[in-house]
């Protein structure tokens, strides 16, 4: 292989990216060396098994990926703003919409949600860590190297270009001979393993590690949604694992599972992809519902309306999410009977979702509403998500879908549910729980600027797309001719995209500004919260709770405050706390996964085999690992609690 094939060449944009990557790496190495931070990085972050630090790393990665996916989106909007643009050629455009979709779903939405659940769930259930802290670190690092492997594709070897769905036969060797789609198959596989382990980890954590008194029906709504999400992950991700493995075999070893010839069945890929893909969208939306439930209830100063109905709706949505997948390919030709069944199951999902919408509205009714940034995101979610949901029901009608299918109407629909649902929730959750992560509050004024810029920009960007779709503009077209009359709405959409970009920049500035000048949270309970995470100090001590709280009510901490006691720590009752030890092995195993993946992408099997030996070695070492963790002494707990102002 020649160097000119190994590195992507010939595009000025790519050369600029090469320079930026080299400069960034040099910058990071320089800063770490100059400030002598290498040991700090290793001890505090790379080897940590603390769920809060892992959560923070997930969120940092997610924000980086939001930047990457956002740049992709802006490049696409630049290309589509005017007819016959020559900004991106068709091949480059294909690569960019592919990486935009894959990154936004798998490397932005998923890690943002998983980051928040890492930080919040153990705190909400009164636990000191997750059930398997070591596994949790491995989950994160596998996700991270998967994301990095996927991201280097655009400078080394070439990006995948068959869409985030990577339908066969387009994604097969015959039509996509380069290494780009190998990246898709391998990188998603690696991060998928991490996600699957996260699902198992949190299912066990929630079922086994709740504080005494917290029955299932006293769990905070966010924890409930995560529990159900874990069930979805555990049952849906194996399908993706198998489908990606078959794809990898097809691409690397010339098997014929999804090919056109030799008995292969290309449409089976679409079928398997969406058996995973539909539960996947609920994996990112259910936790969002949980976040909104927490925020709405806190800032309306009311108990969540219809808690039980909410729980049953989540279970119902999760159940239905497994039997609707065909609505992604009504036009494939499965026939009237198949399409009708899946049309009906799809529309049925609107019922439990509607129940939840009304529950949020009734929670707000007669509430003492405080318009904080987190609350603004949650309030904006309701109407925006309903627009996405109603157009979803339109798409669910199989006969009508033949008109909407793969048009910009669909693009508008799923951005309305994914951005107004998941992205708004991530921002709401970020503002809401930020004090728990860093000990200070994100500036509210800048937060509201972000909100208004982003929310208005979002509507300006995506609302016109419904009409563009009805006017005949189809998905994934890289340019269009002048006479079609699509230009004005495309210009409007691009203006909206720029506003969203500015909103994101304000958010990043807010993170910097608040770290320097932000209001420190001395109380640990800045929003007058209701659930147990607000009973801890901000930032949270690494053992979370000096003594395990006792839960008597759904809003456990609210009940403690109402009964006048708060969450008092009786120093007499302190006992040494058992905590898991840090380990560098998850990080090192994941590095080996990276090289194994890289070897597979380029069919350098010697590299893949050597790296796999290191993975196996890591697993063997782990199984002979006798480290049972360590104890934090009572004296140290007392010191920490007094410093945070919680101890007596």
């Amino acid at each position, binding site marked *: 292989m020649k160097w000119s094939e190994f590195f992507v060449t010939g595009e000025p944009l790519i050369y600029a990216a090469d320079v930026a990557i080299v400069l960034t790496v040099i910058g990071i190495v320089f800063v770490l060396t100059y400030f002598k931070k290498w040991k700090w990085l290793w001890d505090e972050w790379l080897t940590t098994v603390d769920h809060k630090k892992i959560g923070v790393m997930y969120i940092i990665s997610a924000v980086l990926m939001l930047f990457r996916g956002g740049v992709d989106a802006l490049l696409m909007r630049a290309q589509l703003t005017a007819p016959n643009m020559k900004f991106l050629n068709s091949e480059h455009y294909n690569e960019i919409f592919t990486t935009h979709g894959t990154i936004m779903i798998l490397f932005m939405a998923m890690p943002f949600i998983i980051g928040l659940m890492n930080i919040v769930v153990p705190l909400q259930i009164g636990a000191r860590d997750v059930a398997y802290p070591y596994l949790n670190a491995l989950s994160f690092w596998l996700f991270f190297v998967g994301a990095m492997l996927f991201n280097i594709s655009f400078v080394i070897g070439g990006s995948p270009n068959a869409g985030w769905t990577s339908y066969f036969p387009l994604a097969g060797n015959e039509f996509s001979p380069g290494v780009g789609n190998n990246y898709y198959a391998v990188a998603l596989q690696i991060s998928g393993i991490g996600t699957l382990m996260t699902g198992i980890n949190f299912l066990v954590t929630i079922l086994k590690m709740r504080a005494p008194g917290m029955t299932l029906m006293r769990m905070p709504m966010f924890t409930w949604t995560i529990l159900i999400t874990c069930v979805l992950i555990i049952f849906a991700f194996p399908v993706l694992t198998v489908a990606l493995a078959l794809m990898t075999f097809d691409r690397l070893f010339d098997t014929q599972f999804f090919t056109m010839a030799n008995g292969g069945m290309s*449409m*089976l890929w679409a*079928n398997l992809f969406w058996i995973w893909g539909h539960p996947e969208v609920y994996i990112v939306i259910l936790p969002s519902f949980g976040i909104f439930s927490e925020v709405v209830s806190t800032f309306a100063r009311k108990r969540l309306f219809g808690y039980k109905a909410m729980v049953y709706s989540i279970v119902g949505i999760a159940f239905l999410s*497994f039997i609707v997948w*065909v609505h992604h390919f009504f036009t494939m030709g*499965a026939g009237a009977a198949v399409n009708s069944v899946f049309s009906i199951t799809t529309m049925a999902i609107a019922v439990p979702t509607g129940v939840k919408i009304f529950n949020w509205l009734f929670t707000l009714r007669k509430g003492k509403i405080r318009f904080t940034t987190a609350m603004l995101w949650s309030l904006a979610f309701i109407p925006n998500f309903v627009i996405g949901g109603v157009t979803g029901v339109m798409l669910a009608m199989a006969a009508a879908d033949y008109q909407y299918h793969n048009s910009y109407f669909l693009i508008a629909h799923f951005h309305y549910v994914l951005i107004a649902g998941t992205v708004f929730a991530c921002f709401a959750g970020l503002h809401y729980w930020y004090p728990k992560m860093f000990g200070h509050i994100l500036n509210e004024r800048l937060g509201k600027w972000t909100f208004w810029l982003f929310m208005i920009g979002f509507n300006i960007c995506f609302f016109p797309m419904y009409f563009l779709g009805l006017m005949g503009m189809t998905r994934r077209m890289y340019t269009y001719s002048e006479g079609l009359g699509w230009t004005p709405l495309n210009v409007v959409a691009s203006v909206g995209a720029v506003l969203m970009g500015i909103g994101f920049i304000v958010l990043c500035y807010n993170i910097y500004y608040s770290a320097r000048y932000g209001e420190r949270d001395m109380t640990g309970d800045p929003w007058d919260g209701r659930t147990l995470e607000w009973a801890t100090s901000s930032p949270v001590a690494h053992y979370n709770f000096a003594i395990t709280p006792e839960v008597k009510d759904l809003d456990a901490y609210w009940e403690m405050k109402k009964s006048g006691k708060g969450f008092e720590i009786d120093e007499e009752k302190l006992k040494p706390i058992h905590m898991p030890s840090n380990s560098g092995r998850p990080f090192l195993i994941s590095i080996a996964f990276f090289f194994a993946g890289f070897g597979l992408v380029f069919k350098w099997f010697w590299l893949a085999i050597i790296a796999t030996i290191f993975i196996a070695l890591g697993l063997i070492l782990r199984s002979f690992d006798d480290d*049972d963790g360590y104890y934090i002494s009572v004296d140290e707990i007392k010191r920490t609690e007094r410093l945070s102002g919680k101890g007596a």
Partner: protein
Amino acid sequence: MGANHHHETFPWKHIVGFILSLVLTFIALWVALSSGWTIKAILGVIVTLAVLQAALQLFMFMHMTESDSGRVQTINMLYSFFIAVVVVAGSIWVMWFVL
């Protein structure tokens, strides 16, 4: 955490399960690649082997018999069975038009 993770005895169950899984896999591989049977016979045999191996792993690795709560296990198994039927039978039904 805090629980004692050390097993008193050698994990025979896991070793036997692992070896049996390998044996079943290699039988399937042989049947598919070099048995020379009819396609229908090959499909029948490898599907049977797959079901056998799934059952084997449930008992050898997945602590099927070790839970204190039979109800949770029952719900788990019923739901898994439901999903398996949806995925397999559903896919066959959906893809029937090209089969």
